[in-house]
C-alpha cells in the first residue's frame, strides 16, 4: 500500500466526525458608504497610499512620485514610463528593476488589498523583486469585502493570483514595523478615472 492509500484509508476507517452540510456563507460582509475612502484610509495604515488620477495623467503622476528611479517596467495601458522589457527568458534578470508599474484587477475596501493576476506579464516575481511598485486599478473596480472579492476570482484558466496590501513589511524585531522587507519598499495604488 502506498502512502496515499495508507493515509486515505486511515482517514476513511477511523474518522468519527459526523458529516455536516457544507455551510452557505451568509450575505453578511461589511459594506462601506464610500469604498474608495475606506480603501485609502486602510492602505495608509499598512504603509501604502492610494491616489486618483486621470488616465492621461498617469505618467506625470507616477514620475512625480519616483523621480530618481532608473530601471522602470510598465505593462499598464496609458503609461509610457517603462524602459525595461520584462519579457526576458530568466526571471533573475529582473533583479535591478527600481520601479514596477503593474495592472491590478480590483481593489478591496475592507483591507486595502488589490488583486493581481499576472496575465500580461511573464514572471510573477516582478511584483516582489522590484524595489518599488505602483499598481494601477480602474476607479470603479472596488469591492467592499473579501466575499465580494472572491466572486470575481476564477482559476479555471489561471495559474496564479495574489492579493497585495501595501508594500512588503515586517515587525519581527521587537514589534517595530519596518516597511520594505524582501519585496517592494514602497507601494502605491493608483486609481484611474
Amino acid at each position, binding site marked *: 500500500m502506498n502512502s496515499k492509500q495508507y493515509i486515505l484509508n486511515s482517514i476513511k476507517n477511523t*474518522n468519527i466526525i459526523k458529516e455536516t452540510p457544507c*455551510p452557505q456563507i451568509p450575505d*453578511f460582509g461589511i459594506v462601506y458608504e464610500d469604498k474608495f475612502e475606506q480603501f485609502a484610509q486602510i492602505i495608509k495604515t499598512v504603509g501604502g497610499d492610494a491616489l486618483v488620477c486621470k488616465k492621461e495623467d498617469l505618467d506625470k503622476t507616477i514620475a512625480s512620485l519616483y523621480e530618481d528611479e532608473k530601471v522602470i517596467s510598465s505593462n499598464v495601458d496609458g503609461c509610457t514610463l517603462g524602459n525595461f522589457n520584462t519579457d526576458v527568458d530568466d526571471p533573475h534578470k529582473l533583479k535591478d528593476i527600481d520601479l514596477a508599474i503593474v495592472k491590478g484587477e480590483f481593489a478591496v475596501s*475592507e483591507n486595502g488589498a488589490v488583486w493581481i493576476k499576472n496575465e500580461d506579464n511573464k514572471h510573477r516575481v516582478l511584483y516582489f523583486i522590484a524595489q518599488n511598485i505602483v499598481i494601477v486599478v480602474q476607479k470603479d473596480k472596488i469591492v467592499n469585502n473579501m466575499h465580494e472579492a472572491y466572486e470575481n476570482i476564477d482559476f479555471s484558466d489561471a495559474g496564479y493570483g495574489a492579493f497585495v496590501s501595501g508594500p512588503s513589511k*515586517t515587525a519581527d524585531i521587537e514589534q517595530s514595523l519596518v516597511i520594505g522587507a*524582501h519585496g517592494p519598499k514602497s507601494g502605491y495604488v493608483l486609481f484611474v478615472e
Partner: protein
Amino acid sequence: MSNHPQEAAKFVANDERMHWHDKALWFVREKRDLASKSIPEWEELRSVASEIKTHTLSKLDYYLEEFEKNATQKGITVHWAKDALEHNEIVYSLLEKNKVSKIVKSKSMLTEECHLNPYLEERNIEVIDTDLGERIVQLRNEPPSHIVLPAIHLKKSEVSETFVEKLGTEKGNDDPTYLTRAARASLREDFLDAGAGLTGVNFAIAQTGGVVVCTNEGNADMGASLPKLHIASMGIEKIIPKLEHLGVFTRLLAKSATGQPITSYTTHFHAPVVDGEMHIVIVDNQRTPFLASKDYNKALACIRCGACMNTCPVYRRSGGHSYGYVIPGPIGSTLGNFKDPKANKTLPFACTLCGSCTNVCPVKIDLDTQLYTHRQDLGAQGLLSKQKTISMKITAKLMQHPKLFDFFGKTIRKLVPMLPKSIVYSKYNIWGQTRDLPKMPKNSFKELYKQGLKDEL
C-alpha cells in the same frame, strides 16, 4: 521531553524580561481586538469558519482526493508522506533530481515539525530561512518561539549582536530598520542563487487544486517565483473545499494573528512558474489519529494564527521555548500532548483554564476544554507525577467524606499557624513552593454559614 515548569522557572527568573515579553504579546492581542471589532459580523464569521472546518474534516479523504485531482490537472505534482521522514525524503529526492544545493525557505511549522533543515544539511544542502524572524533564530541556532512571531523572545540588542557576528553589521547599531535592511541585502543574494524555494501552505483549495500562502515580507513569493522549483509542504488538515471559503478565512487569519486587515501578500499558487516545476507534499505525520478522537479532533481545524498564544497568560509569561514542543501555547499543548503524552505531559498544566484562548480562536477550537481533558487522560494513563497523584487521591477521599473533610479542615486551621515555616513549606508542599499559604481563618465557611443563618433568625 518537555518540562514546562522547570523551563518556565528559568524564564520568569528574569523579571524584567518576563514583563517585557508579556507586554509585547499583549500589544499584539490588543491589535487583534481592534481589528476584530472593526468587523460587525466577526462572531458570525468565526462560526462559519468553524463549520467549514468541521465539514471539511468530516470528509477529509474526499477533499484530499479532489485536491490532488485538480492540482494534477494544473500541472502540479502531488506527493503523499505518512510521516516526517517520508516528507524529508521526498523533498530531498526532488532537490537531488534537480541538482539543487541551496534552497530558500519561508515559514512552515510543518518543516519544523519534520526537522527538515538538519535532514537536508546533513546531505550537504544549504538551507536559508528567509522570514526575518526565522532567519534571526536560524543564525542563533534556536527554534522559533512563536508560530507567527518567531523571534518575539529576543530584544533588538540581541538581534544586533547576532547580526554583527553573522552579517557584519555595525556594532551597537540596533535600529530595527537598519537591521532589517541588512538582512534584506544579505537574503537578496540568497534568493538570487537558490535552486529551489520551499514554502508552507495556509490553505489548499480542493475545488481549484491550488494553494494559498500568506506572508508580509514577500519572502515566500520571492522563493516560490524566482527559482524554477517550488515545493510546498502541507499537513492534511490544510484543505478547504471551495475558493469562496477563502473569503471567510482570509478575513480572520491576519486580523486574529497581528491585527492587520490582511497579510501584505495572499498568494494563490495554481501552477508552476514558466518552464518550472511545482510540487506539493501532503503530510500526515500523526494527524489522522485526531480524527478518531471525540475529545481532540477539533484541534485539526487550527489555522495557525497564533492568537491563542498572544492571549495566554502562561505563554506570555513563560515564553515559547519553555514548552519544548514545536508549537507552543495552548494549541501546541493540546497537539503535543495528544501526539506524545509521555514526552509532553507537563503541557496541559501550563494553563490556568481561563478560557481566553477559546474566546479568541478564529475557528472556535475548544482549547481550554481539551487541556482540561488531557489532565484526566494523563491521570488515567498513570502519567502524573507521584506528588500530584497522591494529593489528588487524598483530595478525592476528603471530598467524598464531609465529616472527614470538616475534621481535616479544623485540624489544619489550628495546626498550620503553630508549625515552623520550614515544615509548612517543606519540599512536600509543591503548591507552596511559589505561593504563600493564606492566613488560616478561625472558622470554616460551613461554620460561618451556619452562624449566619442563626443570626438572621
